[in-house]
């Protein structure tokens, strides 16, 4: 797998490069800003770009904009955006119309090396990985209104939903939560029933279900704008 890294903080960039290289991933370019990222993907044609949201010169959401532009130029490119905070607004923007090959994770997830590498491969292969905090924010957002469907989720079901958003398999979820795969399946059935998300069978469609929910959750905010 060929990877481009866009991160302005040398400490993190070098750590990431070392981590990826020692795990057999080919880091073809390291850049520090948005324009650099666009040049690198044009020149190197990587499979995946790992992009920090905040990049110079504005240090606002340059990385996000660059990632969206990179995807526009190379639709097959996998993009994993790393950030120190999660905004569902950014997740929706990044996903746009096409959630294939998109990842959005908190930076500290790099500490769980196996899960992080797994996420890289899944995004590069066209999967979707959302940080579990996206789901947490969505949950928080619905409090006070949609009590019927959402507050009805048990704590354990929320844990499962968060891991589902990260695109994990039933087996991985079971391992993380230390329960049996059968129990995970039961939780998932309950979640879909409570959120009225039907027919979400296979691995990828489960993330899509979360995404659909993400879109629905954000719609009212745009009410009468």
């Amino acid at each position, binding site marked *: 797998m060929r990877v481009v890294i866009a991160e302005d903080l040398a400490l993190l960039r070098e750590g990431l490069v070392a981590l990826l290289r020692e795990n057999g991933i080919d880091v073809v370019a390291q850049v520090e800003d948005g324009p650099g990222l666009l040049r690198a993907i044009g020149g190197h044609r990587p499979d995946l770009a790992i992009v920090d949201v905040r990049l110079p010169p504005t240090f606002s959401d340059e990385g996000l904009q660059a990632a969206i532009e990179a995807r526009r130029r190379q639709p097959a490119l996998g993009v994993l955006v790393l950030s120190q*905070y999660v905004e569902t607004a950014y997740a929706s923007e990044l996903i746009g119309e096409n959630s294939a090959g998109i990842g959005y994770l908190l930076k500290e997830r790099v*500490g*769980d090396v196996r899960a992080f590498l797994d996420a890289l491969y899944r995004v590069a292969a066209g999967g979707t990985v959302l940080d579990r905090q996206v789901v947490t924010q969505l949950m928080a957002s619905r*409090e006070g209104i949609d009590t019927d469907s959402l507050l009805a989720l048990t704590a354990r079901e929320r844990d499962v939903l968060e891991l589902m958003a990260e695109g994990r398999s039933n087996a991985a979820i079971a391992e993380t939560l230390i329960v049996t795969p059968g129990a995970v399946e039961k939780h998932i059935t309950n979640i879909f029933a409570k959120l009225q998300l039907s027919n979400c069978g296979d691995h990828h469609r489960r993330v899509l279900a979360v995404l659909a929910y993400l879109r629905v959750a954000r719609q009212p905010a745009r009410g009468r*704008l």
Partner: protein
Amino acid sequence: MPVLAAGLSIGEYLRSLVRRLAFLAAVLVLAIWAIGGQGYFWPAWVWLGLGVVVLLDSAGAWAWRQPRGAVRRVACVWALVGVGAVILTCTWLLTWRLAGVESFWPAWALLGLATAGSAYSLIALHDRVLVARGRRALRARIEMLTRTRSQAVDAQAVELRRIERDLHDGAQARLVALTLQLGRAELRTQELPEVRALIQDAQREAHHAIAELRDLARGIVPPLLADRGLVAAVESLAGRYGLGTAIEATHCESLAPAVESAAYFVIAEALTNSAKHAGAGRTWVRLRTGRRVLVVVVGDDGSGGADPYGSGLAGLRARVEALDGSLSVDSPRGHGTLVEARLPCGW
């Protein structure tokens, strides 16, 4: 009555009458003198008397037009001094012309009058001068305090954003790098379960530290506010409360960071109250910049009865007033809540 029809008061009518009579008398004595064989020009003394009456009337009227109090009293004194000076000077002129008196005998009397008038003015207006000077000093001080406070508030907002940036690029980034290194180390300790457990503990601690720093940074400046400005941050906020908030925003670009933050926290607090306490079905946020002021209105159709002096709203009031703004809360029981903040902004 032709006089009243012309818009004159009784007093003014009497004064014009006195002037006309004086004029008539002056002409009359001149005629008598002329008919009576002329000689010593005695009508000059009558004219002096008549002139003093008219002069007293005019000077009195002028003094009466001055503002009440010390200024009017001083004007009255100077009117008398002026009339006295005229009497003395004219008398000297007449004695000089008619009787051939050489020396300017009123000199000392005039000097005395002027001295008395000045002394009185000085005493009477002394307080006023001091008060005026005090007011000027106060005004200058208020202007300076207003200016320095707004500079301080702006500087504080800029400083807070800098701190947030520093946290992001400094401590947070280092902690992330630390978890990354710990993760790499963990991969190498498959055969050393005790070391592995220690590393995992360390990682958990680092994660807690990162989460705490993130909450801290978010409390300083919500990232969307810093990155995308007020409208985007409010949209995200409204989405988070899931109240189906309608947002209207006009001309809310390029606001000062302090104004942006204050507006954001007003809206956040108001929406929190709507979601938590009011049981609102509908909420709305209106942002509008008028002449040098950003008006923020947050309304809901909930149960009302919010305490405008409760701790949350009191905190907001302090925040808004620090910017010379104002906050009003209208929350009649059963008829929804309307929170309006007016924040002066720089254009």
